[in-house]
């Protein structure tokens, strides 16, 4: 703190002598202060008279067309006058207030932008849901009509026409899958999560997938329906990109803080590292001729993110893939901490 001024006042509070620094002579000491500080300053003067010495009072001193906070000490003299010492508060208070204001303003801007992005996102989801829902009915009709053609009027078809028709059917089926998945993706976003302790053993077993083997899996805190969708999609993805040999999918878990890290590994085609960042995006399909429609992994990411978890992949072309998912441990998971690794010993990936 630096000295601002020191003055002597008479008993009436008029400045009679400037001891240090700059202050006007012959004016009431109170005139140096901002109007908002007057009440406080009067009490200060009264305290000086009463106690003889008072320190550490802060008032605002007029400075140009603004005011500055200053700390005051008062000492009573024998003649009833008093000395007043004014010290500047450490510099930087005002600067700090300014910087903080800027910080919270930009936080506010970010908050607004975030909210409007979320709104746009919600609208897009809704749009996707409506469109995919509405497209399903005409598609169903197309497939119905083709079916009629094939069953009731086969004599009308020569070999080439039959082949073309079968292509149309295959495409219609593909479109059907695409719409189903889009609808699933869009509706998952809006649905509120119903959180409970969900044993992953049950979630995996319910898919009844003959190619899946699992270790002993823990319970996580999640929405059962969405978790089933997550694993269903991971398994579908593994099968869509299988190699010639018999597919094998393994599921293991290990603890990661208050989360579980689940690994789903397959012996499929694998994913080139250049493609790995795209696969979780909507329609981020790597192999355009594969069976996948490019929504499954986007759905997985969506489900995992809604559970505050992460999803990533470790893979290489021709090496199979391992998808990692972190999910919050069930609120009362007895396994957590007491059992470091699941039943089947696996190397840390």
């Amino acid at each position: 703190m630096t000295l601002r001024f020191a003055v002597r006042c008479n008993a009436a509070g008029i400045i009679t002598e400037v001891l240090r620094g700059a202050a006007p002579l012959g004016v009431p000491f109170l005139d140096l202060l901002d109007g908002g500080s007057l009440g406080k300053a009067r009490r200060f003067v009264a305290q000086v008279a009463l106690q003889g010495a008072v320190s550490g009072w802060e008032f605002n001193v007029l400075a140009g067309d603004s005011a500055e906070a200053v700390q005051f000490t008062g000492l009573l003299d024998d003649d009833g006058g008093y000395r007043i010492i004014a010290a500047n508060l450490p510099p930087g208070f005002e600067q700090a207030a300014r910087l903080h204001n800027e910080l919270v303003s930009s936080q506010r801007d970010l908050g607004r932008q975030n909210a409007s992005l979320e709104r746009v996102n919600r609208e897009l989801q809704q749009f996707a849901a409506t469109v995919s829902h509405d497209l399903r009915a005409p598609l169903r009709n197309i497939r119905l009509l083709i079916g009629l053609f094939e069953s009731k009027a086969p004599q009308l078809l020569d070999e080439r026409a039959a082949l073309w028709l079968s292509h149309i059917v295959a495409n219609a089926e593909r479109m059907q899958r695409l719409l189903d998945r889009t609808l699933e993706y869009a509706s998952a976003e809006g649905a509120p999560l119903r959180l409970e302790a969900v044993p992953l053993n049950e979630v995996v077993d319910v898919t009844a997938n003959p190619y899946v083997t699992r270790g002993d899996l823990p319970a996580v805190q999640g929405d059962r329906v969405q978790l089933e969708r997550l694993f269903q999609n991971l398994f579908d993805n593994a099968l869509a990109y299988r190699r010639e040999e018999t597919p094998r999918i393994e599921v293991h878990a290990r603890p990661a803080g208050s989360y579980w890290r689940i690994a789903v590994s397959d012996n499929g085609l694998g994913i080139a590292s250049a493609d790995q960042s795209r696969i979780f995006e909507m329609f981020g399909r790597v192999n355009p001729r594969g069976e996948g429609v490019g929504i499954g992994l986007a759905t997985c990411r969506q489900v995992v993110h809604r559970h505050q978890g992460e999803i990533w992949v470790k893979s290489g072309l021709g090496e199979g893939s391992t998808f990692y998912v972190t999910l919050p441990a069930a609120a009362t998971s007895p396994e957590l901490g007491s059992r470091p690794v699941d039943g089947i010993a696996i190397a840390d990936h």
Partner: protein
Amino acid sequence: MVGIDQSFAGLAGGYLQCLLSGNGDGAWHLVKQAMADGVPIRDLYLQVFQPCQYEVGRLWEANEATVAQEHYCTAATQTIMSRLHARVFSAERTGRSAVVVGVGGELHEIGARMVADFLEMKGWDTRYLGPNLPPDEISRNVIAHDPDLVCLSCTMTYHVSLVEQTVAGLREAKARAKVLVGGLPFNRDPELWRRTGADGWAPDAGSLVDWLRAAAW
């Protein structure tokens, strides 16, 4: 001014105690708990944050709080307000827009932010320009964004003339927006706003949005 609802006295008292002792986490905890108990943001703002700020000012005046404590309370409350953003910005949009700003030299910003947040909670799109903009900057911004409403906030008595200048500047620039003013000097003298040439005044953020709704703005 806002009548303080006694049912919030306990919460506000606890909140202020936390802040005066430098316990921002404790204050945030109380706010979170209150929200979990269903206390609306409006009440947190008007029945907790605002009276606590006024009380800090009173304590400073009574020499029972230091400038450092006052700075801490203010900064912590601003931060806590930021953490409520997700709730503030979630309202359905109405298509109306406002610019909210503190006039030049003003460092007091919580009041202006509350005004912006209350409008936002009513679905207005707000552009909050901070507490510290000179009149011609304000005019430039208002002309560029053409909002329906401009809210000018002022706390220091010696900034009232800047409010007048700003209103005059906006009129001269033929801004389409209605101009409202508010802040401490206008609350102390309820006729003062007329001198500024503004279209209106409200004593606090709550009565502002109530009034806007009643007037179907």
